[in-house]
């Protein structure tokens, strides 16, 4: 029997139901695993992505079909990003006091992310298209897509890199910052948001309200800064 026929016979509503149950089920199972195993590699987002990929592969379902069903979950990223304003308001006093350091840290993170991302791909023999797609990978997905397009990268490839970078930060932020002896919630949130955007910060956001506030600022500000700086930095990088 051709298993591909399965999804053709489903109504859109039934298919949406399947996509939602699959995605949420995978995520809840992954969260359960995360609580049991206590290992950073058991990151719920990473495990859930792998489970869904596996199921789609086994059922021969194309990604576009799955995504059209799982849109509702993807849509929630919008209001969740707006909701980052709430921890920001709560941490207003922290933000005022650390303002200069915050701006310096954001500038440094934005430039390092672009230059190192582009430069390392070129240094190890990758094409310019891959390097330009790598350049905005730390940005929040909607901004990353826009910057990738405007500098001559491939947006879908940028999204793939952004996921890898985000998962990497989510999985390793605790160990990496512990190694550097950085325990301040402000620095943790700002760094995770700058390097790994929302996905990277999803690890530190529930840990501390101040970390959540600075992560929110970092996601918005790094996207904004990099979108503004990229048109200046990219010609210099290409020249080199």
């Amino acid at each position, binding site marked *: 029997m051709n298993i591909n026929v399965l999804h053709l016979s489903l109504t859109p509503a039934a298919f949406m139901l399947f*996509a939602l149950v699959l995605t949420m089920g995978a*995520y809840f199972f992954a969260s359960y695993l995360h609580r049991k195993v206590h290992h950073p590699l058991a990151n*719920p*987002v990473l495990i*859930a992505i792998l489970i*869904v990929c596996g199921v*789609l592969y086994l059922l021969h379902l194309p*990604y576009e079909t799955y*995504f059209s069903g*799982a849109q509702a979950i*993807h849509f929630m*990223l919008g209001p969740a*990003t*707006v*909701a*980052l*304003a*709430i*921890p920001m*308001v*709560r941490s207003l006093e922290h933000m005022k006091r*650390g303002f*200069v*350091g915050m701006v310096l*840290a954001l500038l440094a*993170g934005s430039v*390092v992310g672009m230059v*190192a991302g582009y430069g*390392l*791909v070129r240094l190890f*023999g*990758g094409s310019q298209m*891959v390097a330009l797609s*790598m350049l905005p*990978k730390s940005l929040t997905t*909607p*901004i990353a897509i826009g910057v990738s397009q*405007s500098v001559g990268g491939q947006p*879908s490839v940028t999204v*793939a890199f952004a*996921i890898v*970078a985000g*998962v*990497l*930060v989510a999985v390793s932020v605790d160990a*990496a910052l512990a190694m*550097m002896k950085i325990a*301040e919630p*402000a*620095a943790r949130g*700002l760094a*995770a948001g700058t*390097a*790994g955007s*929302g*996905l990277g910060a999803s690890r530190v*956001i529930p840990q501390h309200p101040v970390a959540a506030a600075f992560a*929110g600022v970092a996601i*918005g500000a790094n996207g*904004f800064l990099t979108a503004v700086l990229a048109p200046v930095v990219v010609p210099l990088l290409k020249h080199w």
Partner: protein
Amino acid sequence: MAVLRAFFFLLLFQMIGEVLRLVVHLPIPSPVIGMALLAAWYMLRKREPEPALQKTADTLLAWMGLFFVPAGVGIMTDIALLRSAWLPIMISVVISTFLTLAVTAWVMQRFGKSAV
């Protein structure tokens, strides 16, 4: 009901962001504009957000990871390219991500001390 109204409030600010983005041609996505506007709204009124809004925001943020899964699964469409240039890709994504994380955290800890 209070939670639904709070959710509507978030959607409303995202929509204002979308309208602004289209009208002013801002290169920033609508949720990020909505986030900035909502933060400004409470900072200017010098008021704490309503408890229902705080609760709704906390719940959404606690489940943020789930919302990334559908986009994350998209990685399966780029497997061929990722495989063909895996070495420069892996080196760059790993090292540049850690460099960004480390530099941002270090500068913030060094110059943003008073934030704590």
